[in-house]
């Protein structure tokens, strides 16, 4: 497979997809952060897998299709992508919001999937209505958000050191992220009643220092997905694949080899 960014037409949308490496197909769904931030991690994965990593429409300067306004739009986009590429035996991996998309794909149809890996995924609401299960990252100062997302907040991207183009992309990413997750915030109230449909092995990887969706949230998720395993990664926040890429990679390889 030729490494690089491909454009794949799905639902009439020109979807940007990184395709890199050979091996079992691994579909990677990024979170609310910049998909470019995943590049080095994808390269590592591509040493072992055929990586397929789409950019959610609206991220990285891509257009938001006029009819898109909810996470379900991404879910059906990727169900269709699996069909368009006629993929089988797919490892489906999703980070944060991408993890939520992965779960929503899986509760609809696992026939093309063999395993699921969720990295600090959102999507459920385990607590009651008065509990803020997921930090409101759109209602906090940027330094506070950095502390929630990173074990080492110095790792957080800072607009002050970016080019105008990079900050504009970041601002665009933020719009798309909010559009997919705004209300109900970062979750689907119905999802917990559908998780029983997941009939492929599922691994939850979680940063021990995640302040946006803490480990207790991961534990609730684990209990709701049949047979799911949870591995907590030390010295990592909401993005362990950024802060501890080697450790994440080890767990991915061990899991898919099972």
């Amino acid at each position, binding site marked *: 497979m030729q490494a690089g960014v491909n454009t794949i037409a799905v639902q009439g949308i020109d979807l940007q997809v990184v395709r890199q490496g050979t091996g079992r197909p691994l579909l990677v769904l990024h979170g609310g952060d910049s998909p470019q931030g995943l590049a080095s991690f994808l390269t590592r994965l591509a040493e072992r897998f055929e990586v397929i990593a789409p950019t959610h429409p609206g991220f990285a300067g891509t257009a938001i299709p006029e009819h898109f*306004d909810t996470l379900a739009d991404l879910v059906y986009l990727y169900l269709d992508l699996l069909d368009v590429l006629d993929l089988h035996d797919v490892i489906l991996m999703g980070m944060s919001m991408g993890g939520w998309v992965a779960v929503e794909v899986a509760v609809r149809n696992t026939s093309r999937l063999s395993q699921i890996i969720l990295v600090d995924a959102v999507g459920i609401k385990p607590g009651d209505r008065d509990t803020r299960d997921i930090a409101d990252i*759109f*209602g*906090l*100062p*940027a330094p506070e958000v950095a502390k929630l997302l990173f074990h080492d907040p110095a790792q957080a991207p800072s*607009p*002050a050191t*970016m080019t*105008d183009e990079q*900050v*504009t*992309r*970041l*601002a*665009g990413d*933020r*719009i798309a*992220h*909010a*559009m997919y997750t*705004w*209300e109900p915030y970062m979750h689907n109230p119905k999802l917990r009643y559908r998780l029983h449909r997941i009939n492929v092995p599922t691994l939850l990887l979680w940063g021990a220092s995640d302040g946006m969706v803490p480990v207790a949230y991961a534990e609730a998720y684990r209990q709701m997905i049949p047979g799911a395993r949870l591995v907590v990664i030390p010295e990592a926040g909401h993005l362990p694949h950024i802060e501890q890429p080697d450790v994440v990679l080890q767990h991915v390889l061990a899991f898919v080899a099972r």
Partner: protein
Amino acid sequence: MQSWFFTEDAYPYLPEASTYESIRVNLPNKYYDPDKGADLYHMYLDLWCAADELGLEVMVNEHHQTATCVVPAAPIILGILARQTKRARLLILGNPIANRSQPLRVAEEMAMIDVISRGRLECGFVRSVPYEAAPANVLPFRGMQRLWEAHDMIVKAWTTHDGPFNFEGRWFQARQINIWPRPYQQPHPPIWITVGSGRSTIPVAQHKYTGAVFLAGYPRIREIYDGYRTAYRTAHGQEAPLDRLAYAALVYVGENAQQARAGAEKVLWYMTSNKVPQHWSNPPGYHPPAIAAQIMRGTRGGAGLPLAPRLDEQMARGNVFAGTPDQVFAQIKNFWEYAGGFGHLLMMGQAGFLTYAETLTSMRLFTQEVYPRLQELTASCDSERLQALRAGQPDKEFADLGAFGVEFVR
């Protein structure tokens, strides 16, 4: 020119600004004393009634979760004024229909006010300022789409009189729409919409609605008004009447320069108090990415630093008209000519700690000594002469918006 008296109904009795993060959204309401609040409501209602008696028109607005404007439900204030005032036109600017879950409620409230006031309602619709996103829990992305769809539903509800109709839009749905009462004015009350750029004026001009501009000042007014006038000409093949354009500014008129300056400094509280951090002033989807990025980098206003707008600077920008009656007339006349004319002056005549008596002094002086001259000015001016007057004034150059947040120039 019609002149409208307006106050945001602030609650100014706050602790030192350094002790709180934001005056909007998350300032705890333990700082709100309901006794003082009751006095304030009555003072503001008295001021609006005084405006009615003096011959000014009345304008109200609403914001949420903020000490800058303790009217989270403008229709309630307007409902009181519909009964208590006698002659004034009643402008609500406006209903934040992009943030409302059910526009029909707005259609019903406005129809009630129109009937109670026997047809004195002027109904404004607004997209809202960015800090309304969190209180409303509504994503500001595509807010203008939501506004126009809600508008379509409301106007159809006002103008359909033969029983229920169906409306299933992208954002708002109802299947049995048949409001009681229907509006007093036929086919419906005049509609106003706030505009903040040349582009945003296009649908407003196409509908022949009044476009209202807040505090754009000399730096932006020509772009916005020209956008409206061009769109109006394109859509209707004739010049936009003067009364299709409105301008909102802070106004204080004093007996002498010293009194005027003291009063204007107090009204400036509206700007100086607006301490708002970036996560409230720059919610995702309110600004296009390029503007949002500038706010994120801190190279554009809206960063929520304690703003320090100076009176002289704001007067030079055309955001504040203040002085003796002669001075205020000259300031407004100059801005009006520069702008190419407008038919409505929306005067924030009270803010912060400005007292009832101080406010009334300014309102009286305005009504007696400035207003007649403004009416004469607009009555004697046709479109050709206006364009000639305007051509006599070259574009003013302003370096940048300074610390003045983009949210004000919307």
